């Protein structure tokens, strides 16, 4: 290999990509936030927003090292803990510090994705503990397997931007969390409707925008490969959206907005592992095919007892699996210079892809279960029925998404020296008028 040197164009593109991927987490907050009831809107959005802080810090402290430092086939070493030695020296053609930041945005969104399965019922403290530990114990090793020189990388598994590392991984944890924590009390007893579908569409749009950084940025350079991944990230979700809309029309005679938002995400998930490995026509076909399993899984799931509230398994689990497997079908050396898939005479690639998915599901399932049970030993994971009825915004955060100041009585916290003269009179009047 040549002596690595920094390339300004690559650095510029990766700076932009990192910012794009970071935006996906607040975008997810809107996507998820719109799908829940108004009394849980803030809690749901906070589950994504909090990941920006908690997982971000965990990544700098330990996660980056466990994922990307030299280590075993299973996990990275500790030599990069607390970012030690992570400086401006080239990692590929960009500064290692930038590489660390870019990969950190992946850890953040992956942990936030899990929240979709447990919204409207999980206590916030245990949630924070779970995603923080999960990013270290589950995400970092799995990222190491594929991108940090671990065993899946050595087997030749293709995962361009994280179909298995991010999406199958998060969806497995989501499934386990939904099962361990249990249903919402109203699930399958009452209609639970999205409170703000425009939020969900806004979130889907911003996710798509950010996903250009996620996929095209995974080329780690401003080159032809990035352009391929970029175009594929535009084409595949378009294909999914068309097929999804037609399926909606066939089933109900109406094309739904929530369906469109979901289709965009499913298409993005499916193209993620394939983005830099398949040609644009294959991407379009892949996006179209990916609509079917997720669409029917969503319809079926709603009739089961599994309260995967925002369908993380159907959208990310199935979308990611389909994408990972189809990468093994459509991969073309002519485009990627790395490996061919089944269609180009290399059926073995499909088996390697399947092995990657199975390994991720197995590890993420067991480790996520253990983490949740561990936290459950210390403190309950679920809110009580009263708090669930009241809504988690008030019970967990002491705020409302759509607050009304009628009936809100100011609690005065006066500094000793200066208490404004007029205000106590108002407080006294309020106290009189309030309860007697």
């Amino acid at each position: 290999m040549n002596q690595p040197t920094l390339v300004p164009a690559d650095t510029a593109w990766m700076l932009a990509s990192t910012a794009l991927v970071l935006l996906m987490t607040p975008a997810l907050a809107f996507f998820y936030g719109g799908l829940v009831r108004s009394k849980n809107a803030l809690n749901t959005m906070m589950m994504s927003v909090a990941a920006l802080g908690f997982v971000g810090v965990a990544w700098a402290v330990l996660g980056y090292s466990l994922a990307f430092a030299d280590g075993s086939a299973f996990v990275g070493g500790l030599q990069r803990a607390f970012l030690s030695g992570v400086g401006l020296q080239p990692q590929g053609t960009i500064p290692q510090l930038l590489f660390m930041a870019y990969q950190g945005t992946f850890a953040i969104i992956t942990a936030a994705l899990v929240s979709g399965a447990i919204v409207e019922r999980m206590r916030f403290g245990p949630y924070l503990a779970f995603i923080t530990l999960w990013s270290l114990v589950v995400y970092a090793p799995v990222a190491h397997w594929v991108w940090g020189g671990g065993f899946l990388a050595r087997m030749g598994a293709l995962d361009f931007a994280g179909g298995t590392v991010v999406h199958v991984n998060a969806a497995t944890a989501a499934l386990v969390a939904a099962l361990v924590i249990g249903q919402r009390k109203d699930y399958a007893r009452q209609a639970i409707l999205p409170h703000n579908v425009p939020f969900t569409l806004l979130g889907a749009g911003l996710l798509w925008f950010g996903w250009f950084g996620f996929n095209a940025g995974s080329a780690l350079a401003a080159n032809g490969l990035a352009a391929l991944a970029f175009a594929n990230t535009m084409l595949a979700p378009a294909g999914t959206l068309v097929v999804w809309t037609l399926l909606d029309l066939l089933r109900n005679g109406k094309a739904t907005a929530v369906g469109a938002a979901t289709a965009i995400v499913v298409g993005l998930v499916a193209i993620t592992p394939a983005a830099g490995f398949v040609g644009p026509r294959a991407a379009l076909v892949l996006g179209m095919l990916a609509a079917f399993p997720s669409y029917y899984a969503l319809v079926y799931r709603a009739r089961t007892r599994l309260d995967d509230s925002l369908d993380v398994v159907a959208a990310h689990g199935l979308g990611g699996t389909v994408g990972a497997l189809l990468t093994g079908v459509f991969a073309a050396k002519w485009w990627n210079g790395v490996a061919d898939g089944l269609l180009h005479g290399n059926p073995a690639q499909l088996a390697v892809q399947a092995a990657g998915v199975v390994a991720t599901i197995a590890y993420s399932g067991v480790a996520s279960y253990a983490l949740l049970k561990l936290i459950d030993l210390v403190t309950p994971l679920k809110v009580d029925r009263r708090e669930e009825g009241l809504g988690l915004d008030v019970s967990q955060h002491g705020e409302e998404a759509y607050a009304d100041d009628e009936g809100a009585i100011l609690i005065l916290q006066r500094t000793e020296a200066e208490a404004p003269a007029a205000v106590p009179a108002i407080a006294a009047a309020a106290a009189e008028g309030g309860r007697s």
Partner: protein
Amino acid sequence: MKLVVAIVRPEKANEVLEALFRADVQGLTISRVQGHGGETEEVETYRGTTVKMELQEKVRFDIGVSDHFVETTVKAVLGAARTGDVGDGKIFVLPVEKIYRIRTGEEDRAAVTPVQVVAAGRA
């Protein structure tokens, strides 16, 4: 004729509605209201501002019924709206002087008796 006014928790509104339909109470009006019923106030904080929410969101049912239906209606609401905590709400039964059905001009008891055709259509 009586007007049954029930103030219930918003999260119980759907259950109350179901219970009423099951009890064959088919005409009603609901509105979102705010009220205070002695429950502990939730404290909320927005940056430096801490407030006590003295008014809670409630849902108000207005149900006009003929006299022999009052008990059924009240029982349905009592059964469905109760959680056992302070703040479950109230039911008021008020006398009604006159009722008109706008579509037909029917009065009083006839005006609050469901039309059979509509009932059949529902089932």
